[in-house]
């Protein structure tokens, strides 16, 4: 089903949306302070803090902490701050969204946007540490998939197979060779792969050990009738399996 949406339709929908939002906003009720979290107290409970306020606060400004303020988060709360979290401003977590404990329960996505759109699950620490958020260990993670990175694939930039990698999108990705190598398939004219019907199952002849050569599997079957043509003779060198 494909629709062509005209500009008047878009403008009408936009206007309707505006009306709906305006109506909803018009009903805005007074939200009592902390009404959302009434049972849980403040963003940062002070009930177990030392009696001396000046330990943390300036005497004339409760919103500003003393210079050189230090707080042993693990000793006082049981939650260790590691990596960049130990350097972060308190208000990055303890702010007026609500008690940090609720967001901490959610894990990383409690505070950080999930740029992977939930597709990679809740265990961010599988790829990220807490210092720079630079991903690491992706090579090892491929051993926990059906597609371990070997040969030339181990020297290939992530984006070559995951075109959305730079914005955090790794899925979906198909592991069929032609998903990435379709241009190579079209350029393979010695012999002419497409003319012979060799349009899939590249792994019957090619191994991921080289950009240039073909390793022939002389024992391989030609494949389903009508889908595959005869295979090249043993020893033949084929066209490149190379992604552009």
């Amino acid at each position, binding site marked *: 089903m494909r629709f062509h949406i005209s500009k008047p339709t878009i403008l009408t929908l936009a206007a309707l949306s505006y009306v709906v939002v305006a109506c909803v906003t018009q009903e805005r009720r007074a939200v009592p302070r902390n009404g959302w979290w009434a*049972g849980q107290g403040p963003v940062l*409970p002070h009930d177990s803090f030392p009696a*001396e306020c000046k330990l943390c606060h300036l005497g004339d400004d409760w919103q500003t902490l003393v210079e050189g303020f230090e707080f042993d988060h693990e000793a006082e709360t049981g939650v260790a701050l590691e990596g960049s979290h130990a350097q972060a401003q308190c208000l990055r977590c303890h702010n007026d969204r609500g008690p940090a404990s609720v967001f901490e329960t959610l894990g990383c996505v409690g505070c950080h946007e999930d740029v992977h759109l939930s597709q990679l699950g*809740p265990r961010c620490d599988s790829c990220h540490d807490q210092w720079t958020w630079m991903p690491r260990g992706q090579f090892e993670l491929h*051993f926990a998939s059906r597609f371990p990175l070997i040969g030339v694939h181990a020297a290939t930039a992530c984006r070559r197979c995951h075109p959305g990698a730079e914005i955090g999108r790794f899925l979906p990705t198909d592991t*069929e060779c032609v998903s990435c190598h379709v241009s190579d398939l079209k350029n393979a004219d010695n012999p002419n792969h497409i003319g012979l019907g060799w349009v899939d199952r590249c792994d019957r002849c090619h191994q991921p050990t080289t*950009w240039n050569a073909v390793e022939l599997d002389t024992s391989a079957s030609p494949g389903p009738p009508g889908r595959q043509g005869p295979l090249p003779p043993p020893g033949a060198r084929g066209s490149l399996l190379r992604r*552009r």
Partner: protein
Amino acid sequence: MLLLLALALAAPARAQDGQDTVRIELRVSATRAGPAVVIDRGEGAGLALGDRVRFFPVRGGTFEGVVVELEDRSAVVELSNPNVRIETGVKGEVLIPRERLEREVEAPVAVPEHSPWERSDEDWSPGMPLLALEGVRPEARPLKIGGRIYLYGNGTLTTDAGRKDGYLRAGGEMFLENPLGEGGGAHIDGEFNYRRADVPDGDDDDQTDLRIDRFSYHRGGTRFSDQRWEIGRFLQYGMPEFGVLDGFEYDRRLPNGDRWGASIGSAPDPYDDLEEDFDFQMAGYYRWVLDELEQLSFSGGYQMIRGDSSRDLFVAKGHYLPPTGWNFHGTVWIDAYTSGDDEKDSGLELTQAIATTGHLWKSGNGLNFTYSRVRIPETDDDLYDPLIEDDIYDARVDRLSMNGWRWLEKKKRLHGRVGVWDADRGSGADAEVGMDVQDFLLDRGRGDLSVFAGDGLYSDYVGARLTFGRNVATGHWDIMYEISSHSQTGFEDENDDMVMHRIRTSREFHDISGWNLSLYGESNIWDEDSSYSLGIFLQKSF
């Protein structure tokens, strides 16, 4: 009053000389030049000049000092060991004679005069700390700017045909808190990419891109406001599964904690550097939560995209996150197709799913089970080459995996994983088990030895990996060696084996004047060929 409080807090103790004493707990409130610190207890708490104070830093040890200056609510303590540094916040204690407190309690305490208290306790309830009711509203806060800048670089040389690959990513992210004085926030995020591939016997590749990931302004969604809206380019707030939007999103929190919201605008192309083709997008969602702790929640949403891309997507997700016991996260993506879709049958298709349940024991041991499914949705008639459309849209993989870790001793941990997968072209399994040891060979060193094996789509493999690293004052370094033997599925015995070696080393510098730097080098060696990579990551947060 303070003395009464001190008495209540104080635990009785008996000094070595048999005198009845009271223990006064205290903390270091400031450090002084020289071997002295300021503590948060003074004459009002019963302290006197010459009292001996003991400090207990978190890092261990006990250090002593003597009270040399005294005020009503603070005192200066001179440390016995001039080489010791006691940090602000460190706890301590002082033992004082009980009779000193009792004698002073007898003194009459004057009650200060003050005008009647006028503020009501309208929002206060028993059990709520008194400081709960105050807070500076977002619109009253000063403009604050935060963010980061970063640079990625990587170069790879492959000996086979002399191919060279490289990329450079330079980006920045900036948050502005209350830029317009009404309590909202702005968020700007972008990246410049340069990619180059030199292919000696083929076409070279040379690309540059400037991508804007975010340019938005939002307001609300705080404890002061049950409504939130955002406009511009942003990742959708209520349902990130719907992706990046150029448009407007509205979100409302209901009194019971549930939320609903809707968005309208254009969906940029996620596979083409978020290029904007104006694909009209409209979406709505509802999130149900059990209670204020949000330990149990379910969400459902629908997204419609029309234009060059077209999609009818339903997303459902839920989580159960109790403080102890097994937790659960799950999300499913369901696409709706009609007779107008060329490659997919009419009806609903479970396109993608991921569900994880896990448990973390008090001992530090953990166990996770994960199920995932991936299919490729049909969204754009022109997205894939017609030659491969059948393969793309028929592709499917389901995977069930388990991973866990168990502490054998305080510094030895056994870890492992096992997974099975089933796809449109076959099925297989993989497993890994390893042991890591902390303080291995060197103080703050860490060694890890893992072995792994698997039955992949194109090859079977077995291998081992040895890693050694160490945390140092400026950061971290590590070195890794891995060997794996692969047998290509379907090839004859004399032509199917390949041994691959991988060596990697990295050095990280953490928080050097706010900068983080990571350098790494890596080499892969297989058959008669090899590849060599060098990389850098540099980041400054502000």
